[in-house]
């Protein structure tokens, strides 16, 4: 996929919000990577469907302020106003929840992942069905590659959280446990 082209198109559409352009029209470039119906088909790119609006707002803010470093998103967000951020995050929350992956889950990995999720009390913040709440993201049926990447980045603190919570939690999760956790959450039903 030509990411630069998409980012460029996306940028032009974000910078020049044509008169009376709807949020659906403005968000089209976002959904080109993140998935039309809330489920992303793009490698390492999160599904946005059913995401908590306060969490989405925080992430868009962090991209705009370069507190979260990922160049395509930093570019996309840099000219957005505070009202734009709210508009996009509210819109994201209305997208349909991501669909569970079609490939069959590996039973052994699911059992290990479930035990880890229960052991580490992921449901404390992410809700009993992992749908998230407020500033805490939905992680149920998120893309497995993105979950694994994100957990690893929180563990080595290369992704800075808005606050310290995930860096703190991941201190006691071993590197080789991340794959099973991601597999379980991605396939959670």
């Amino acid at each position, binding site marked *: 996929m030509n990411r630069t082209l998409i980012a460029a198109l996306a940028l032009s559409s974000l910078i020049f919000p044509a008169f009376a352009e709807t949020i659906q029209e403005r968000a089209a470039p976002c959904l080109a990577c993140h998935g039309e119906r809330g489920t992303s088909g793009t490698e390492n790119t999160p599904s946005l469907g059913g995401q908590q609006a306060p969490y989405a*707002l925080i992430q868009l803010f962090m991209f705009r302020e370069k507190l979260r470093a990922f160049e395509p998103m930093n570019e996309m967000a840099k000219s957005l106003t505070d009202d734009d951020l709210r508009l996009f995050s509210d819109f994201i929350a209305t997208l349909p929840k991501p669909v569970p992956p079609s490939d069959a889950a590996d039973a052994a990995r699911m059992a290990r992942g479930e035990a880890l999720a229960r052991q580490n009390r992921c449901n*404390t913040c992410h809700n009993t069905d992992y749908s998230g709440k407020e500033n805490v993201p939905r992680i149920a049926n998120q893309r497995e590659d993105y979950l694994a990447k994100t957990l690893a980045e929180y563990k080595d603190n290369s992704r800075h959280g808005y606050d310290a919570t995930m860096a703190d*939690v991941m*201190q*006691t999760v071993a590197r080789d446990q991340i794959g099973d956790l991601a597999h379980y959450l991605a396939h959670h039903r």
Partner: protein
Amino acid sequence: MISISSVSRRVLLAGAVFGAFTLAAAAQQPASPPASGAAPAAQPLPPGSPLIGRPDSEAAAKLAPVAPPPIPTQADKLPLAKLKVPAGFNIEVYASGMANARSLALSDKGTVFVGSRLVDKVYAITDKDGKRSVKVIASGLYRPNGVAFKDGTLYIAELSKISKIEKIDEFIDNPPKPTVIYDKLPKDEAHGWKFIAIGPDNKLYVPVGQPGNNVLHDDDHGQIRRINLDGSGAEVYALGVRNTVGFDWNPETKQLYFTDNGRDWLSETVPEDELNRVTKAGEDFGAPFCYQGNIIDQELGWGKNCKDYTAPVGLMGPHTAALGMRFYTGSMFPKTYKNVIFVARHGSWNKSQKQGGDVVLVKLNKDGTVKSVEPFLTGFIEDNKYVGRPVDVMQLKDGSLLVSDDWNGAVYRITYGKQKVAAK
């Protein structure tokens, strides 16, 4: 000074071995899920997990750290009308639009510096001929929570380094980048953000929190250090400190008083946050073995005795997050306020009914212990939700009191007497 390092390393090592065992055991578990009926009990949390003590109950599942909205609240939408102060006092908005406004410092020219924790900026509120304005004086910093001012120089504490900008008031419109004076600090996210202040001994006091909710740690954590203003001469001043985000010196005795936040998940009602007093360098305040002076930790306290640690001079409420605190030495407030301590309580998350989220007034006995804790500024909690969260307090030269609010990105000013609205 006691050396806890060898003990804690051994225990940490034991934890790692234990962790490896449980891991191996988990890996060998049969893949098939349990046949039917009740779900199996969850494995114990890994050693050092921030969630240790958290029961697997519905009530506990509702509790999680609360994050503020990222965008500061517009001045006209601030919850000013909801905030209550005692009769005779007034509260107004001093400045707004500063995302995640946290710790406060004051220059001798009257500039107010404001740190932040969740964004990368330090702000300055200047007051020129009655015209107040806010500007960003440093950005691209990492969790620059702490600010302090002395002899023209602004000191900034990021997560793992201290830097300074000299003659800040002269360069306020175009300040140079801060230069680092001290960076021999751990990089932990947990309790890594810092409050800083300069003591009567002209040294900079720098806390290093414990790297987790309730954890054993090495010699570099769980303490307050002091350093010379050029970054040299670092020494440990207080031990057994879990996470202090506010301190000040008693104007009469010159002793350091500091707030310290108790651990999470022990219960709804204990431990209470502490107000501590250092009477001599090297004192140990007990965390993570003893909390609030009389609770031996149920997990890490075995073999320990609270008598071996300095007890707090006062208790500040369970999970209330007592943060910024300053002695009041001004003359604007009534005489009974002389040398009282104002303490900003950020407010609880680890408690079903939120508590704190206010500024309280702490009066001391002659012997320096706490006589009373009374509400002073309230109204930040509505229907068990925050409409604002106080972080720091600071007296201005005229004796009025500033209060920062990181939820709304604002600073309020409290005055006494016939309302003199600060010039706009």
